């Protein structure tokens, strides 16, 4: 749309309601009716002024049923995937977009109710509509029905969950029997037998670790659709996570400190973010022999980003390896052969999870001094965060 068109509309705007304003943009209307994504436009008060044919098809509501209704009137009962109501709250993404004038960086996955009362899952892109003069015209939502894809992802997750159970059960049994033999519960064994059984035991442990990590990767390999984007209290998540590591750090005699600003909130996948930050903190502890591990989390109001740093006083990562460590199956050359070596999946998962949340991940490290991982995630602060 060129400026001249917009300016013309601006002239109409005060006299006419936006419905007729858009009604006159018949070319635009027919274009929007051709697209297969649902599109609706609201005025600044979030009353619906335009509703395309795909929106009718996806939701079952006809244009005349929704025009003039406020999207906040819970017509579609938007909730995030965790079931939090979005309409008529400060969490409504459209409200936030219109208020802040900012376009959310990534499409949101939202559950809605169609006219038949069935739950559908839609991927929603939202943007505020502005005139060049800066006047707020309203907001636009473009949504795609991804119910089938989500169903497929759920099936995949169920498959992984059952596969994981099938693989782990025999290993756990093997572990139990080896433990029993080594503890002489089933009678005496000689030295050589003990040595061999110990070898089997260690190999079994290694295999169990690999299976665990590969299953993690399987779970994390899903497409974007399998990423849930729920309203998430990151401050609480991080605090619980760090506390969960205190025993492990304590065993190694390491300090484990944190400083987390309350109310850090984002739209994110709880399970995956927990996994990613666990990998970072777990690695920091694993590769630090003395000193401390520190996690800090705060908010940058200028960029609307949550900033998390995980630093350690560990062995550090040589410069020539720093680029490769986020690659799948990469394992640092210098990690001691006897230390528990991973599969090289941990940091790969961190990188993917951060990227899928439209975040960024940086590493600063000096061998012998330690490493600092810094994560930036788009988010916001919920005052009096719960």
């Amino acid at each position: 749309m060129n400026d001249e068109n917009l300016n013309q509309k601006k002239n109409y705007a005060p006299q006419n309601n936006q419905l007729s304003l858009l009604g006159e943009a018949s070319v635009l209307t027919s274009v929007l009716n051709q697209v297969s994504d649902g599109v609706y436009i609201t005025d600044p008060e979030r009353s619906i002024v335009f509703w395309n044919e795909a929106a009718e098809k996806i939701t079952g509501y006809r244009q005349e049923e929704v025009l003039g209704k406020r999207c906040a009137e819970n017509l579609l009962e938007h909730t995030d995937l965790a079931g939090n109501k979005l309409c008529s709250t400060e969490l409504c993404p459209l409200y936030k977009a219109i208020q802040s004038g900012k376009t959310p960086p990534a499409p949101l996955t939202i559950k809605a109710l169609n006219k038949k009362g069935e739950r559908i899952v839609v991927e929603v892109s939202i943007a505020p509509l502005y005139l060049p003069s800066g006047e707020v015209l309203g907001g636009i939502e473009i949504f795609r029905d991804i119910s089938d894809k989500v169903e497929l992802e759920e099936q995949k997750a169920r498959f992984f969950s059952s596969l994981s159970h099938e693989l782990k059960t025999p290993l756990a049994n093997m572990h139990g029997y080896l433990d029993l033999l080594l503890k002489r519960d089933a009678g005496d064994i000689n030295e050589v037998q003990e040595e061999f059984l110990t070898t089997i035991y260690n190999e079994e442990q290694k295999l169990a670790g690999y299976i665990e990590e590969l299953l993690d990767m399987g779970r994390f390999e899903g497409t974007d659709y399998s990423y849930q984007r729920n309203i998430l209290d990151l401050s609480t998540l991080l605090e619980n996570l760090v506390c969960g590591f205190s025993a492990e750090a304590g065993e190694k005699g390491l300090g484990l400190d944190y400083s987390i600003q309350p109310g850090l909130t984002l739209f994110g996948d709880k399970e995956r973010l927990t996994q990613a930050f666990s990998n970072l903190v777990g690695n920091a502890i694993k590769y630090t022999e003395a000193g401390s591990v520190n996690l800090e989390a705060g908010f940058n109001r200028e960029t609307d980003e949550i900033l998390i740093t995980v630093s350690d006083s560990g062995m550090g990562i040589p410069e020539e390896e720093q680029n490769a460590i986020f690659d799948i199956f990469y394992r640092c050359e210098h990690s001691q052969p006897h230390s528990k070596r991973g599969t090289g999946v941990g940091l790969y998962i961190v990188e993917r999870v951060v990227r899928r949340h439209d975040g960024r991940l940086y590493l600063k490290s000096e061998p012998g001094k330690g490493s600092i991982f810094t994560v930036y995630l788009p988010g916001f602060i919920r005052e009096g965060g719960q």
Partner: protein
Amino acid sequence: MSEPEAKKILVAEDDPGLNRLISFKLEKEGYRVLPVFDGKEALKTALEEEISAIVLDIMMPFLEGIQVLKKVRIAKPHLPVIVLSVKSREGDLHQALELGANDYMTKPFQPEKLIEHLQKIMRNN
């Protein structure tokens, strides 16, 4: 544990490897073990035998552990029961606890831990 008071424990677990492992450990501790491998057998044994506790897997063929628990609770409301489940079936666990299971273990677990928990609920009973 002394011989004369050998208590009978029903181990209902369809995975033969795990069943034998638990049973072996329990026998080491001086218990008498009645191992069964499906839900129907579990219910029959629980109702007919004079037992001191049940180790009950929730996912079993023929009759789910939950159904076994329901019926056992009617006949023997105070019998200590510890249920076994996997983490992904949390809903079942909640249901089992509501139905009066005394404790639970999520697989995989250390057999020693199971015995510890089992002895604790038997003491409290």
